[in-house]
C-alpha cells in the first residue's frame, strides 16, 4: 500500500518563481527514502506540500487514500497529528523543558496529563535523554536537541516521519547517530522521508534516493523504488 502518491505536482510561488515541475512519485508504506538535490532544487517545497504548509499549483497528492491537496485548516491540523516532523533548526520551544517539548503534540490532542508525561518519558528513554528531561533546549547540545525533536515527532506514533535537513546543523558523527535513529524508527514500521543534500550520509545509510534538480525529478533509484502507479491510483481515489 502507498503512503504517499503524487501525480503531476507543480508548484509556482506567488512571486512567479517555479519550485516544482510535474513530479510523479509514489512512496510505499514503511519505506525509507531520501529526497536529495542541491540548494533550491525543491526538496523543502516537496516536504511542505506533504504537510500542507503549501498547496500545489497543479496536481494531486494522496496520503494513504486521502487526497490532501485542498484541505481546510482544521483538517490540516488533524492530518499533521499523524505526521512526525524533524527540522534542521530543531524547532523546539526554548522556554519549555525537554519533557514539555516532547509532550506538546499529545497535549494538543487533549490526551490526559499522566498519559502524556508517561509517554514523553518513554520517548526520552528511547532517544537516551530521560536524565535531561527538566533541562531547557538551549542547555543541550545540537545533537541532543535533535534527539528531543525526534522524540517529539515520535510521541504521536506517526505513520510518516518527515525530516528536512535533519543533520544540517550537526557534525558528522552526530549526523550518523541521528540517521541510525531514523533507520531504527523505520524498522519499527514508520515511513521515513528525509530531505538532505549530504551524499556521504546517503552512502553510509543506503535507501531509496529521489533526486531533484531545479524542481524536476531527475532520478529515483535504490531499494524500495516503487513502480510509478501513482497517477492510476489517484484517478481511482478521485
Amino acid at each position: 500500500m502507498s503512503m504517499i502518491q503524487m501525480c503531476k505536482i507543480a508548484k509556482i510561488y506567488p512571486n512567479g518563481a517555479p519550485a516544482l515541475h510535474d513530479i510523479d512519485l509514489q512512496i510505499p508504506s514503511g519505506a525509507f527514502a531520501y529526497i536529495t538535490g542541491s540548494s533550491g532544487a525543491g526538496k523543502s517545497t516537496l516536504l511542505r506540500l506533504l504537510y500542507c504548509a503549501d498547496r500545489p499549483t497543479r496536481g494531486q497528492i494522496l496520503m494513504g487514500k486521502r487526497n490532501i491537496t485542498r484541505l481546510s485548516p482544521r483538517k490540516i491540523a488533524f492530518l499533521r497529528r499523524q505526521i512526525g516532523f524533524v527540522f534542521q533548526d530543531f524547532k523546539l520551544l526554548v522556554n519549555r523543558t525537554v519533557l514539555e517539548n516532547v509532550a506538546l503534540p499529545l497535549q494538543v490532542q487533549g490526551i490526559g496529563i499522566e498519559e502524556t508525561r508517561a509517554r514523553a518519558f518513554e520517548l526520552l528513554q528511547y532517544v537516551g535523554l530521560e536524565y535531561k528531561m527538566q533541562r531547557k533546549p538551549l542547555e543541550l547540545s545540537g545533537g541532543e536537541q535533535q534527539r528531543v525533536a525526534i522524540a517529539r515527532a515520535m510521541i504521536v506514533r506517526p505513520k510518516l516521519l518527515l525530516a528536512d535537513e535533519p543533520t544540517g546543523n550537526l557534525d558528522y558523527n552526530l549526523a550518523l547517530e541521528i540517521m541510525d535513529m531514523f533507520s531504527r524508527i523505520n524498522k519499527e514500521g514508520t515511513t521515513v522521508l528525509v530531505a538532505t543534500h549530504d551524499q556521504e550520509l546517503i552512502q553510509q545509510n543506503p535507501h531509496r534516493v529521489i533526486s531533484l534538480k531545479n524542481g524536476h525529478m531527475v532520478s529515483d533509484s535504490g531499494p524500495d523504488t516503487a513502480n510509478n502507479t501513482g497517477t492510476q491510483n489517484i484517478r481511482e481515489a478521485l
Partner: protein
Amino acid sequence: MKRLRYFIQRTILSMIQSPLLSGATIGTIAVALMLLAFFTLIVLNVQNITQQWSRDIQVTVYLERVPSTNKLEQWQQEIERHSVVENVTYISQEEAFERFRTRLGQNDDLLDGLLPEILPASFELSLTEEARSERGAENLVQELKKNPVFSDFRYGQDWLKRYDAFMFLLKLTGTLAGGFLIFATLFIISNTIKLTIYARRDELEIMTLIGATPMFIKIPFLTEGALQGIIGALLALGGCHALYYFFLKKGLSALLTTTAASNISFLPVPLQLGVILLGFLLGICGSMLPLRKFVRI
C-alpha cells in the same frame, strides 16, 4: 474540562515563562491606561469645578419702582414662566441696603445718614445649566425686555465672556488631547502586543506543525492578552489613585483656586470598571489582530 485546565495552565505558565515579554505588555498597558485615566480624572474634576462656578451666573433685573405685593407676585410668575429660569428671588431695597453694608465691611460708616431707598429693588434669576452662558443670559434678557417694567439688567457680561472662552478652550483641549491620548493608547498597546506575539512566532509555527487547530493555538494567547490587559488596568488605576492622592487633590485645588480639596474626587466606580473593561478589550483585540496574521496553517 481538560482543555479548560490546559488553557488556564498555559495562560499562567506562559506569563511566568516569558516574564520580560509579559512585563513589557503589562507595563505598557498600565502606563498608557494610567495616562488616559488620569487625563479623564482631570477633565472630570475641572468640569465639576467649572460647573460649580457656573452656579454663580445670574441675571439681575432692577426695578424702577417698588411694586405692590400683587404686582410682585405677577412679575415673579411672569419671570418663572421662562424655561431657562431655575429660580427667582426678590431682593427688596432693605435687603439690598443690608448686603451693601455687609460688603463695605469696616467702611460701612459711608452709608451713615443714607436710606435704603437709594438702592433699587430687584429680582435675582438663577439659570438652568444649559442657559449658563453669555448667549443664554442675553436671550433671556431679550425676552424679559418685552415687558417695559424690566429695563435695567446686569448679568456680568465681561465675566461671562471670559467664562465662555475658558469653557470653549477647555472643551477644545479636552477633545483634542483626549482624542490624541485614546489614539496613542490604542496604537502603543496594540503595537506592544503585536511585538510580543511576533517574538513568539516560533511557538505559533511549532504549534501549527504538531497539529494544533487555529483555535487551540489562539485561545491561550487571547486569555493571556485579556489577563495582561486586566492586570495592566488595575495597575493603571492604582497608579492613577496614587497621583490623585499625592498630587491632584491639592495641586488642582490650588490651580483652580478652589479652597476645598474635598471638591476634587477620584474616578467614579463605573468609570473605574470602564478602565478595567478597556484593558480587557485592548488585551483581547490587540492579541487577535496579530494572531490572525501569524497563525496560518
